[in-house]
């Protein structure tokens, strides 16, 4: 893959990308500089601990080295030089020990208090979180459901999460198979997705941009390729995006795409859902508005027609172990399906 | 015979260690068997701690719905608990009789413990057969039968130990001075009893105490 995070023109909106690009382009998983909460609250203590750690190691290493170099006796024959053995000096030595212990204790106390304060700080978002997103981990993709009190506004998508900037978003996390972990380093810390248990998490993106997330708990063969993308955009763009998602897909117009739709229903619809195209499978990711996403196979491939054909032709070669089967369709049939999928643009 | 008292000198003739006549063989709490049994009991106790931890974890996590519709009743378990406690008492009386060199009394008390233990086992088997669920029905069923099953295995072992001790006591192997095996066996039996109390408290009492 050439670049992990690409600048995407979304719904004709240019993202305000300066900061996000700075992190996104070069260090997609970097979390020592964050762009939202609770990451923002965690970073200071992380730096604090890091400096403490470096400080301690430097001091101890210096003490050991100095001790060795200053005190070493050269040319001692351990078998013979009996005078070399010196009696213990526990009385004065222990004073240093108690001093060192006191320093350790003092440093630890500071960090225990700091830890507790940070924990209390990141427990809940400041103020209400108006948006709740349910995420279900699957081997090896993310099922994303935007919840709403108005049932007609609920919809499902996969592997790409859009959130409005500056608004806390709540997550309900669970898993369909094994334990996964939801992690978007540049914005938020991790929370596990555990089958049979619902965990909650929240975050608030402060800077518009595209952030990479990844499964952080080993979940099987393709754990490494279970990425997700968080697109943080202005609340207006976010609302527009949500409205767009609710649109049913546009019926294909060309002959080849129509044929592709039929073939899709026959071969793919058992697992994949496309709203409005009479395909209702639930095993695999929802493919409505597929072309609006920027990657395929949960963040593995950029979403280009070429990669799309490769993926539908033989998924197992690209992502060994994937649960998506090979369909053994002929070349023209694959072309037709691809043509149909390419029409799944931004709705009506 | 071992040299069991004396004085040790170093090379220069200084006195290093003086000690009196030492007892030997297995005496009281200082015998190897006693230490071995104690460490065994610690291990077994840890096993039951893990099992009960699993139970409480599930119970707290899933609440009332996780428990069976019909909570475990005291009808059978109440009397069986009393029986087991009594058997501990009789076993203790048996040990006392050995200490007092009363062979007949010891055998009598030990046989009583044996019988009470057997009755407990019988009641427990009856209770098992009355349960509407099996070990593989749900996680509650698994835990119920695993925990009570492990306890039953300990009861069975305890009964065999008591049986052997009763026979040996009857033929006069033990008296007030050499009675370690009796004490150790009785300690094991007390342990089985104590474990039952925690199991009973967990499965029977807590469910009624904290019923929502």
């Amino acid at each position, binding site marked *: *893959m050439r*670049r992990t995070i690409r600048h995407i023109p979304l719904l004709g909106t240019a993202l305000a990308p300066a900061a996000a690009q700075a992190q996104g382009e070069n260090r*997609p*998983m*970097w*979390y020592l500089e964050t762009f939202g909460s*609770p*990451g923002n609250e965690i970073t200071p203590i*992380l730096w604090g*601990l890091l400096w403490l*750690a470096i400080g301690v190691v430097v001091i101890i290493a210096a003490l*050991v080295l100095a*001790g*060795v170099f200053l*005190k*070493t006796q050269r040319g*001692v024959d351990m*078998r013979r030089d*009996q005078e070399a053995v010196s*009696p213990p*000096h*526990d009385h004065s*030595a*222990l004073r240093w*020990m108690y001093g*060192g212990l006191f320093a*350790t204790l003092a440093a*630890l106390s500071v960090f225990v208090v700091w*830890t507790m304060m*940070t*924990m209390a700080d990141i427990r809940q978002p400041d103020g209400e979180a108006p948006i709740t997103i349910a995420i279900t981990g699957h081997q090896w993709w993310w099922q994303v459901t935007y919840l709403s009190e108005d049932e007609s506004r609920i919809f499902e998508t996969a592997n790409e999460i859009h959130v409005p900037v500056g608004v806390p978003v709540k997550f309900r996390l669970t898993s369909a198979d094994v*334990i996964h972990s939801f*992690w978007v*380093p540049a914005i938020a810390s*991790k929370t596990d997705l*555990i089958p049979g248990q619902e965990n*909650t998490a929240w975050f608030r993106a402060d800077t518009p941009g595209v952030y990479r997330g990844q499964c*952080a*708990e*080993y979940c099987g063969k393709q*754990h*490494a390729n279970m990425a997700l993308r968080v697109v943080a955009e202005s609340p207006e763009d976010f609302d527009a995006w949500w409205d767009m998602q609710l649109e049913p897909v546009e019926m294909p117009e060309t002959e080849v795409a129509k044929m592709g739709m039929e073939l899709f229903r026959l071969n793919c619809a058992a697992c994949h859902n496309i709203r409005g195209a009479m395909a209702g499978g639930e095993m695999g990711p929802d493919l409505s508005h597929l072309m609006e996403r920027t990657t395929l196979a949960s963040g593995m491939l950029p979403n280009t027609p070429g990669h799309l054909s490769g993926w539908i032709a033989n998924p197992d070669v690209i992502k060994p172990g994937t649960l998506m089967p090979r369909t053994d369709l002929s070349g023209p049939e694959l072309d037709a399906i691809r043509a149909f999928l390419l029409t799944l643009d931004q709705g009506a | 015979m*071992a*040299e069991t008292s*004396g004085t*040790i000198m170093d090379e220069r003739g*200084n006195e290093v260690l003086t000690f009196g006549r*030492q*007892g*030997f*063989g*297995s005496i009281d709490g*200082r015998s190897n068997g006693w230490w071995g049994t104690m460490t065994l009991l610690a291990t077994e106790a840890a096993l039951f701690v*893990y099992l009960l931890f*699993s139970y409480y*974890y599930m119970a707290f996590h899933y609440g009332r719905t996780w428990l069976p519709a019909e909570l475990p009743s005291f009808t059978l378990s109440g009397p069986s608990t009393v029986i087991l406690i009594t058997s501990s008492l009789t076993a203790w009386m048996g040990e006392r009789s050995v200490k007092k060199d009363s062979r007949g009394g010891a055998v009598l008390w030990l046989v009583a413990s044996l019988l009470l233990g057997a009755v407990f086992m019988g009641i427990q088997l009856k209770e098992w057969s009355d349960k509407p669920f099996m070990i593989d029905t749900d996680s509650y069923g698994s835990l119920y039968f695993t925990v009570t099953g492990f306890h039953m295995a300990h009861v069975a072992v305890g009964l065999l130990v008591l049986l*052997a001790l009763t026979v040996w006591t009857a033929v006069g*192997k033990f008296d007030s001075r*050499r009675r*370690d095996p009796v004490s150790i066996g009785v300690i094991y039996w007390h342990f089985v009893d104590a474990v039952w109390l925690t199991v009973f408290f967990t499965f029977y009492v807590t469910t009624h105490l904290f019923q929502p």
Partner: protein
Amino acid sequence: MWQHLFWIFAHPWVYIIVLPAMGMVSDALPVFCRQPLVGYTLVVIATITTMILGFGVWVHHMFATGIPFMSLSFFSGASFIITIPSAVSVFAWILTIWYGKPVVKVPFLYFASFIVMFTIGGVSGVMTASVPADFQLHGTYFVVAHIHYVLIGINLFGVLGALYFWFPKMSGRMMSERLGTWAFAFIFGGFNLAFLPMHWTGLMGMPRRVYTYPEGAGWGWVNMTTTVGSFLLAFGILLVLVNVWHGLRRGKPAGDNPWDAPTLEWAVSSPPPPYNFATAPVLASRHPLWEDRLPEGSGRSSLHHGPLLDDGKEAMLTTVLDAEPDLVVKMPDDTLWPFLTTVAMTVFFGALLLHLWTWAAAGLGAILLCMLGWLWPRDDLAQTSKEAHHG
């Protein structure tokens, strides 16, 4: 649930791995410092404390699993506190170097670097003990670096040092100092080249247990360093193996006590005779071989005269803390019962595997009978009332 059970076992397990290595260092480092360990009692207490606390910190592997706030705080606190006993040991080792007059030999190189490796593994542990920090660090290469410093830094360095230290006692021959120094250089350099940058990989957000990652992640060069380092480390280990092999065949004879060490094992020949000591030695201090040179303890140890136990298999049982003679225990002598029990157990478990229920029942019965025979109270072992009366 399963995670709880796993970590409740696996965290104490880590301490079970590192504590013996720490003990070896506490035992052998002072020999090269020509000075008894500073704060011996404190170190002993610290070791015991570590093990006890070690049973109460397992949840720090599971901070991200949605555990309630209160229990997170508790386990975070416990994980911070466990630093204190480790700090005691580290200070004790450093002070032993400072107050002693170290002689640099291969084991000393390992032990001295061990202290620093221990510290690195320790402070990265402190970082992950902080819940918020762990929310980010958990599951990244930072944790991988941490565990390597703990297991290799603490265990391997301690054990390799101990190998060089006790090899003469085990084999009667010395290992080559020159080859040993080279091996140490490769192991120390390779290990740190491999695993120090790995902290950085983790801080850059690389999740663990991935076989591939996007090219743009910026992790490439650090991982390359790690790869190079691990090959150097492996080469160093190979040198150690060569060193052992060479030592066994061509090593210089070691004599009883090549390091002029103070403890009991160095009083017998190298390798030690099968019976160790002809009579149980009586000790007056922790350093029986340095007693003449240290103003320590009241008496002097007697290594060659001790109580004689000559009536069958017997051993002296002493009191737990003061080691005063307490009881002569009779050890069981040769008997066929354990073997028969084993045969019966083989029948029992084999039958279970093959679903032969009758055989299994027979096996179980046989086991019980064998146990009964094995445990039958015996007069000659003073297990019955009979012996007691005329004994």
